[in-house]
């Protein structure tokens, strides 16, 4: 097992290097950070040239990639192109918020999705099963950003009609000093509830569909028939024999979904103005600043790779049929 983990970690190094090169060339080719300055008639070509020279923008891409890698490794991604702001402290702060946000979404959707999927499979073709299936199809077709908007609309309408504030529609807390203890917690929940719901909907739909299919497959398998035939009570057959085996494929689904949740975070954080990675990414992009964008992509790629590794290890832990040499 340990050798497997080490080998996977070693293997991910070339993947990360290739990804970093891809990210750097992609972002450099697609964006001209000085575009806005160039179209400004008050700035002369010489001034642009001197800026380009001082920021090394006149060098070929491969040379700039070298500089960038050096900065990324030795200076924690260096500074932004405009304003010379250090990237890492900002990125670390928003990363904390977003990981809280995404992990709570994964946990909530996994619990909900597993419960719905298992119950649907046990009561196949029941009213509950049909309702859950229909809702999950609607979930697949609903853009996350629109769901977020609709939740905001709902809260605003409730506030306008009855003057009750159930959940807040923007920000992380109502004031800089949000209090502490229970008040802080309640305030945080009131702020995070809507974005988490918006982020959970699609994942819950996905997980519940997979869980239903996987549970149905396991329930029709030979070892479940054997368990029933030897006279085990149904409860034990389902919990010990069926459920645990049905859970295994879901690990992969959740691991793949992890990357997709960052896309969800881009949208929800922008709508709810949360100080997270998604909001940071969109703002850096609007500012045409390539370096925070590259750092962001690099950090997300690393996290996705790590998460996939964790999923593979968990797979081996839960499924004794899989052996890592």
């Amino acid at each position, binding site marked *: 097992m340990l050798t497997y983990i080490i080998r996977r970690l070693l293997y991910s190094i070339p993947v990360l290097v290739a*990804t970093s090169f891809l990210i750097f060339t992609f972002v450099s080719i697609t964006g001209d950070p000085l575009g806005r300055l160039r179209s400004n008639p008050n700035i002369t070509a010489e001034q642009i040239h001197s800026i380009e020279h001082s920021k090394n923008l006149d060098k070929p891409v491969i040379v700039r990639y070298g500089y960038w890698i050096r900065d990324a490794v030795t200076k924690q991604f260096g500074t932004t192109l405009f304003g010379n702001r250090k990237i890492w402290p900002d990125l670390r702060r928003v990363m904390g918020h977003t990981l809280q946000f995404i992990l709570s979404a994964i946990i909530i959707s996994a619990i909900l999705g597993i419960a719905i999927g298992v119950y649907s499979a046990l009561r196949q073709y029941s009213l509950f099963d049909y309702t859950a299936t229909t809702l999950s*199809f609607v979930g697949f*077709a609903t853009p996350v950003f629109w769901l977020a*908007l609709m939740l905001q*609309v709902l809260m605003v309408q409730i506030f306008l009609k009855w003057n009750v504030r159930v959940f807040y529609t923007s920000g992380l807390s109502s004031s800089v000093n949000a209090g502490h203890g229970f008040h802080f917690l309640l305030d945080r929940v009131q702020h995070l509830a809507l974005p988490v719901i918006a982020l959970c909907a699609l994942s819950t739909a996905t997980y519940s569909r997979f869980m239903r299919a996987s549970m149905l497959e396991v329930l029709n398998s030979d070892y479940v028939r054997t368990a029933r035939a030897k006279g085990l009570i149904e409860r034990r057959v389902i919990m010990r024999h069926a459920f645990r085996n049905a859970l295994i494929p879901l690990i992969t689904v959740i691991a793949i979904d992890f*990357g997709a949740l960052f896309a969800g975070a881009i949208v929800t954080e922008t709508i709810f103005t949360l100080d997270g990675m998604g909001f940071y*990414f969109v703002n850096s992009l609007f500012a045409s600043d390539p370096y925070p964008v590259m750092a962001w*992509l690099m950090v*997300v790629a690393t996290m996705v790779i790590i998460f996939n590794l964790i999923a593979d290890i968990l797979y081996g832990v839960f499924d004794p049929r899989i052996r890592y040499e």
Partner: protein
Amino acid sequence: MTPPEGPAGPSEELTYQYGLEIEARSQWAYARRRFLRHRLATTSLVILLLIFGAGLFANYLAPYQYQEINLNALSAKPSLHHLFGTDSAGRDSLSRVLYGIRTSARVGVLVGILSTVIGTIVGGLAGYYGGWADNLLMRVTDLFLTLPLLAVLLVAAKYLGHSTPTKLALLLAFLIWTQIARIVRGSFLSLREKEYVEAAKAAGAGDLRIMLRHMLPNTIGPIVVSATLTIGTAILLEAVLSFLGFGIEPPTPALGALLNEGQDQGIDKWWLVTFPGVVIVVIVLCINFVGDGMRDALDPTQRRVRT
């Protein structure tokens, strides 16, 4: 007239005798029958055609021009005059949604066609010849798996700047054809080993003929299904890009751009953000159901029909 006794099944004589004819059915006819018996898929197809038709004929159907300003009805709630209400400039929201459907549908269909063509060609070649081209394709698609698609799209869309529907469709197609390429590759990889391909090779058929006459028709099911589903994906992606301000720019109405405007004008005007979103959900829902129906219909091994 009672049917004559005899062996079961129509014989040529009997069919002539009773004026019956045996209708030769092609694979497509079978597929069409199976699809039409799939009630949910058929209903979805009808709804989808109605919505897309409404978008196509927006200039006849829309009660107002999408740029027409009515100063007597600024930010009006939905009423008989303005079924979907108006925005802060007094523009009729229903008319804007109809024109928005046209833009979004155009982007969706264009992406569906383009990415299918690119994906089929690249995936087919990679699957058939294997080797370095196959390796390259798989490694590149693997790399893209580590990055969230939306983030990559946003960076690329930022570069395009003020987007027209065609430009945006090209961009989307350029980034999502890999999914279809993977499907076609997988299918070609397994078909390559089939006996009939070997037979064709023995008969002296060229590579191109084998690919086009023998392998492509046997992959057409998954290709058509994923092309359909790609249209839905493209409409969702167009909506989110336009909503974030990186997609289609005003004044061209697109469903995502309308939601962006609606949010800018204040979330208390609920009608501006509700209706365009409902239309997106209904379109994508119908596309997914149609795709599901096609998957069942185009699978020749499946004779039983779900009703």
